[in-house]
């Protein structure tokens, strides 16, 4: 890994984002708008909003970075820029770390914005520290990026890539415990949920929101989110071969 190559990639991705203010605007605004919507959807049942607010705060960045990354990497593959980079003195690790850095920074902005709206305007409350929630949400963004990178290898077109959203992300959303406690699910699903990264992202967010400090569960689940991220990044790197048929 080379810091200068990682930075060069991150700066390049920033330049690309700067040239696309509409995407950045959507990335930052959409989660906040959804949060406002949620607040009024549960107008008469505020306890539900309080219950799902924090976990959603952390799951939005996972979903949006998943989408952005899978499309970006697909584009990098189909326009030949990836192949060109593979003939140059830059490692896959440098490239991925550069992407992770740039997207994590965008995700942090996204999270801070939606958190500010939720806590100050919408009356969302959490026992745990806001910074912990923001940090976890940013980590989730990097997890989303890593997953998006990995699945982009299985898409040939952008149409296929966006189908991974309902195909890969929504099942995790259903099983992670956000909609119903996992204990109340069919046993098979309960077992299956244990294999999915979003399950641990959700658990960690619930734990940090509960405000019991650095509990064993919080440390374990955060560690698992990190582990899933590293595995997905490594698997993603393996999908970027220098030689192709």
């Amino acid at each position, binding site marked *: 890994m080379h810091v200068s190559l990682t930075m060069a990639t991150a700066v390049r991705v920033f330049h*690309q984002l700067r040239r*696309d203010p509409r995407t950045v605007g959507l990335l930052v605004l959409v989660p906040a708008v959804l949060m406002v919507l949620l607040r009024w959807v549960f107008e008469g049942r505020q306890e539900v909003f309080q219950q799902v607010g924090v976990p959603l705060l952390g799951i939005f960045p996972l979903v949006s970075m998943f989408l952005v990354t899978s499309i970006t990497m697909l584009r990098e593959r189909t*326009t*030949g820029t990836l*192949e060109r980079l593979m003939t*140059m*003195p*830059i490692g896959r690790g440098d490239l991925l770390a550069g992407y992770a850095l740039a997207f994590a920074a965008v995700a942090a902005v996204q999270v801070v914005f939606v958190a500010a709206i939720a806590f100050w305007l919408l009356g969302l409350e959490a026992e745990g520290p806001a910074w912990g929630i923001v940090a976890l949400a940013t980590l989730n963004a990097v997890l989303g990026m890593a997953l998006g990178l990995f699945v982009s290898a299985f898409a040939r077109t952008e149409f296929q890539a966006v189908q991974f959203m309902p195909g890969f992300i929504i099942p995790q959303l259903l099983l992670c415990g956000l909609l119903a406690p996992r204990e109340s699910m069919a046993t098979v699903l309960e077992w299956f949920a244990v294999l999915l990264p979003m399950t641990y992202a959700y658990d960690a967010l619930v734990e940090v929101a509960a405000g019991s400090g650095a509990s064993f569960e919080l440390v374990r689940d955060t560690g698992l989110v990190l582990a899933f991220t590293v595995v997905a990044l490594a698997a993603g790197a393996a999908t970027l071969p*220098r*030689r192709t048929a």
Partner: protein
Amino acid sequence: MAANDEPAVRTRELRVERGGNLVLPRLDLEIPRGGVTGLLGPSGCGKSTLMRAIVGVQRLAGGEVEVLGLPAGSPALRSRVGYVTQAPSVYGDLSVRENLAFFGRVLGAGPGAVDEAMAAVSLEAYADRRAMQLSGGQFARVSLAVALLNEPELLVLDEPTVGLDPVLRGELWDMFHRLGAAGTTLLVSSHVMDEAMRCDELLLMREGRVIAQEPPGALLERTGAKDVEGAFMALVEEPSEVA
């Protein structure tokens, strides 16, 4: 001209399959160091595949490719070999300067390299224009400029002059010759036959095989043809005359 006795490129029994087709059945060739070698042949004859094998991004079914004395694709070659694909491979949403600055940092190019590369392809006036807003020919030149950033020893250019006006094409060929005379090895594919006459050496390919490798003058003399196209025809018809 050659600073080194090793050829710039050497393939031995190179065999490549793509999508179930045998694109290069068994290719043995050597490209000397320095100068401009033109790679000519009809579309689909294996030119791009050969170039991909030389820069080390093509999966091989057999044989070997050696570039500047090292196996193709070796990490040590990544800053010594420049490659321009047929489809321009730069970021359309970045400006010309941002594209060159990024690739320059990846290649470890020196300061001033970005401006020099832009000047070499006559794009200074478009430095801050987004690549995708440029015309097809200008877009292709951005891609070419990337390969000029770090003055590689071997430049592999896949149809670099497609869609360019004749004046600009002439200027680029002048540049290729300047680089070639200074010791750079250039492998340039083309299907414009008048460009062939400007090469120091020609490699004619057909159906994955090299059917001739010699300077254009010698080729015309041997085949008695008036131009390279005629020489190509003569070479293709040769075996049937024997049969």
